[in-house]
């Protein structure tokens, strides 16, 4: 009895070892010569980035894996882990922080995010523009200004329109990422929110209604992309950054609602980091 059990246990252990080794071979065969880049990216621009990643894999065979999170969380993540190949927060402010910590040596501006106003489908509160947010009884949402790029932009828009003091009292929620805010409008918990054009493009007009903000108040925020110093494939990481600055990538960004393009000449510029 005891001998039989020992034999059975040995056999099982052997089978597991053989299985693991076989799986290792199969796995290695599949992944040999593969370069995988890890990109820390803002969660709100997933559709565009997923498409660009798939396109890039098709063209070059290099696989892009995104870690999606709110822009402000990304930096804290990177500080703790010291891992990643490409860094793409939603705003220059966060890129500058990464540059200051020397995580990123140089970057390019690949596209722009532009603030828009969204309201519930059918616009039940008859909101016509940014100043209507100061009216009594409005429930307004913005990104948390200290945490996400879109929150800082929303505060800027409202300050430029001269209604920040009044609207501040109507802010019913501040989101940790931009889609958290837009989803709250969609679900009817908020009357209006200030989000990015690319966020508003995630929805149909049956879900939320987009209202443009006049150019005098509008905030246009550059989207920077840079290779990281921890990268084990720095050449490939730099090539992916170059691809994101290409005309081909610009078309994909435009398709996903990034309404303010960056002129090609500006996209070509490599901005060197340095303490700033």
């Amino acid at each position, binding site marked *: 009895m005891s001998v039989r059990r020992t034999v059975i246990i040995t056999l099982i252990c052997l089978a597991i070892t053989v*299985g*693991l*080794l*076989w*799986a*290792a*071979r*199969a*796995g*290695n065969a*599949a*992944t040999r010569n*593969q370069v*995988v880049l*890890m990109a820390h990216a803002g*969660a*709100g621009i*997933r*559709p565009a980035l*997923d*498409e660009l990643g*798939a*396109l890039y*894999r*098709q063209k070059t065979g290099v*696989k892009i*894996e*995104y*870690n*999606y*999170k709110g822009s402000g969380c990304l930096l804290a*993540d990177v500080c*703790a*882990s*010291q*891992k*990643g190949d490409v860094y793409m927060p939603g705003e220059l402010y966060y890129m500058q922080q990464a540059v200051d910590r020397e995580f990123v040596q140089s970057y390019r501006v690949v596209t722009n995010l532009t603030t828009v106003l969204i309201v519930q*489908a059918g616009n039940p509160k008859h909101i016509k523009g940014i100043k209507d947010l100061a009216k009594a009884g409005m429930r307004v949402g913005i990104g948390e200004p200290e945490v996400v790029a879109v929150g800082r932009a929303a505060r800027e828009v409202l300050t430029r329109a001269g209604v920040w003091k009044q609207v501040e009292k109507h802010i019913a929620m501040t989101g940790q*990422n931009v*889609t*958290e805010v*837009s*989803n709250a409008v*969609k*679900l009817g918990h908020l009357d209006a929110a200030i989000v990015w054009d690319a*966020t508003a493009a*995630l*929805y*149909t007009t*049956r*879900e939320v209604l987009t209202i443009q903000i006049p150019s005098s108040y509008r905030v246009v925020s550059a989207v920077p992309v840079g290779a990281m110093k921890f990268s*084990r494939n720095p050449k490939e990481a730099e090539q992916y950054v170059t691809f994101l600055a290409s005309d081909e990538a610009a078309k994909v960004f435009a398709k996903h609602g990034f309404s303010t393009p960056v002129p090609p000449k500006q996209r070509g510029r490599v901005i060197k980091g340095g303490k700033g």
Partner: protein
Amino acid sequence: MTASAVTSPEGGDAGNRLFSALLISFLIFFLAASALLLLSNVWYLAIARETIGKSGWALFVASLRSPETHFAVKLSVVSAAVTAVLCMIIAIPAAYSLSRFRFPFSGVVDTLLDLPIVLPPPVIGLSLLILFRTPAGHFVNHITPQWLVSGINGFLSLILRERVFEYGRWVVQGEIWDDGTNWAYTVRGIILAQFFAACAFGVRAVKAGFDTIGVRHEEVARTLGCTRRQAFFKVVLPMARNGIVAGAVLTWARAIAEFGPILFFCGATPWKTEVMPISMFLLNSAGTVESATALVIIMILISALTLLTFKRLGGRGYMW
């Protein structure tokens, strides 16, 4: 069940009935509220035609058929199962020691053990991320053998691989790529995150099981000639079966529900660390609340199935 069924033997008087009815009404209120909470997801999907112009049923079926959902479900189930097995390997001897032996500083031991239960789960994720940049973490990365990494990744790839039609051509998604021996932002990191978040629950449940078995059983077995080892394997373990099953199911359930630690330590990477709660987070981040809701319903069904299986296995009492 009516109130009269639970009245006391001497009772039957109106006051007692009224009191019982009052108690039961609280239960009914809570049950109704819980049911409404869960069913609201179905409700929201049912009116999807009004909100986004698509039928909710079609969205649910699309979610069931989506290769990304298949990936998330498989990854969740497999990682939670591995976690539960690992937790039990640790929890059974640990719980037995706690139940039978006296420790110095037992207050400290108890507190350390219960901390993961009380701590907000994301704390575990951030701590892991920071641990792996300290020399201790570098050492763990250093001693992790490459063959083990390749083995785990190859094994996972075999299970998780899905063919996806994407941007005009078929691609294989869900292969786990060889990412070196560093543990942060990897699929095997999920198991680490789940382990630290869930193991304490397992230890507690198994210990409760051991506590109900008197030391006398072992002592009798040993006077009859059993060694300590034999008494443990032949007497205590079979008697503690219910507690062990409860511990295993509880850790599995905790592991499959884990979100915060994985978000921090493994990242929210589609087709890689996309367990079901992360998948829901990513769908929500893309503004597709309806698809997230469809996934929520799938998660509710899986959880309900787990509980029913657990009850069938006879594990009652120790869990809560």
